[in-house]
């Protein structure tokens, strides 16, 4: 009945599988806990987390529609796409950052892969994001943008963004174990990301070179993809696809490297 530590070495695949089976139950229970805690098991809890991007949207619309609306098609959708991508990144990486320290009590008492605690937080954030996506498409319909099969392309940036969140979460959660002030530095960093993501203004007003440079911001790159598909009805180029997948690969590799190196040291700091 007890399944810990029964990981004999009979091939990588069966090893991965038995590892997955051994911790599947724990993972599911952690996801349930994180999700319930986040929404306090109320319908209102979920409503609040959906209202958050909507209120944010409202403020930006009130303030900036004066300046930009006349020159831009579907300004509302333009801003909404920006906000929800940014907020997903913001929420998932912040939750990821505290995932190890928040579970220090458990981690220092049992043997389990530490990334489970991070992944479980990411599942919660992902669910919120998908709910926001639903609202987004309601707004898209209200704006009179016809549904196009091209919208299924959006699965691609959702996947790369989710992987990016996990990768950044790996890095941040490890750093946070060692340096508690990383959360303040990260808050400032997020501010920078916010203002360089062109959430409420059109990047088209810049020179072509500047527009290319903005793609260096992974969040803008994802927002850009959403806008190309939904607002402009275009299929993004192969280059955009490559850029989008590059960021999560770098973040995941770096994150895994840090975990591999410092995994056994985390516990001394908890």
């Amino acid at each position: 009945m007890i399944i810990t530590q029964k990981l004999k070495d009979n091939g990588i695949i069966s090893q991965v599988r038995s590892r997955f089976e051994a911790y599947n139950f724990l993972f599911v229970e952690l996801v349930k806990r994180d999700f319930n805690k986040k929404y306090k098991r109320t319908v209102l809890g979920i409503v609040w987390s959906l209202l958050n991007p909507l209120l944010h949207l409202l403020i930006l619309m009130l303030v900036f529609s004066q300046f930009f609306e006349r020159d831009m098609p579907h300004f509302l959708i333009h801003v909404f796409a920006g906000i929800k991508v940014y907020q997903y990144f913001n929420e998932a990486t912040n939750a990821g950052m505290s995932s190890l320290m928040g579970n220090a009590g458990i981690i220092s008492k049992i043997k389990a892969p530490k990334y489970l605690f991070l992944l479980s937080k990411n599942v919660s954030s992902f669910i919120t994001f998908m709910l926001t996506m639903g609202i987004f498409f309601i707004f898209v319909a209200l704006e009179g943008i016809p549904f196009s099969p091209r919208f299924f392309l959006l699965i691609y940036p959702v996947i790369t963004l989710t992987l990016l969140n996990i990768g950044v979460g790996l890095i941040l959660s490890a750093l946070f174990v060692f340096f508690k002030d990383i959360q303040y530095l990260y808050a400032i960093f997020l501010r920078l990301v916010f203002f360089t993501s062109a959430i409420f203004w059109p990047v088209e007003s810049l020179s072509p070179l500047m527009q290319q440079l903005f793609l260096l911001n992974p969040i803008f790159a994802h927002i850009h993809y959403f806008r190309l598909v939904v607002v402009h009805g275009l299929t993004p180029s192969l280059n955009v696809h490559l850029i989008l997948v590059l960021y999560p690969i770098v973040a995941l590799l770096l994150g895994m490297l840090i975990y591999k190196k410092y995994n056994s040291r985390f516990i001394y700091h908890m």
Partner: protein
Amino acid sequence: MAVILEAKNVSIRYVIGNYKDIGFKDYVIQKLRGEYKLQEFWAVKNVSFQISDGDFLGIIGKNGAGKSTLLKAVSGIIRPTRGSLSAKKSVTALLELGVGFDGDMTVRENIFLRGAILGYTRAFMNAAYDGIIEFSELQEFVDRPLKQLSSGMKGRLAFSIACLVKPEILILDEVLAAGDASFRKKSEAKMTEILNSGVSTIFVSHSLGSIKKLCNKVLWMHKGEQMAFGETEEICNMYTQFIEDGN
């Protein structure tokens, strides 16, 4: 009998100092000034022991002897800095009863979460659930948030989940018992049943009485070092002598 767990020259180093409280900024400044220093502290030094099928190993020693650290290494929570630990069977550690409990979740949810943390399977927990509720006498509270329970009730719940273990190698930090007088009696009986089932056990205790009663081997540690490892009677006598000599 076959050796099922072997520790060879296990040493565990902790890093101490003010590193826990410094932030990234302080770290960079101290690094630049060359003031950043870590002090090392060997919590466990060169400990070796073996246990075979059915053995009952007691670990004795004063506070700060490194007993709990050693148990954490045996359970796989921390990795020995030096030396090796090899277990041929699965190790189950009951180090603290209430780990992983969450006040905002219901009793039912906590049972499953705690079961998952202890490494039980879902099927096992589904089958065991009614027994846990019955043993802990918390039938009326299953859908209440855990924070509404008294600490005695929480203790009862924690014990009832933990005592389900059917371990191959069991690790215990003191004999576990919980709750009021009547539950304490019931839980002690349950614990004795597990311990008498012949499972190989490693057991830390400050009570020489329980050590003598339960263990057939004893490891004595002092300030991280292994003072002796061997037969219970002999080592307990040495330890008693050592304490009486004013150490």
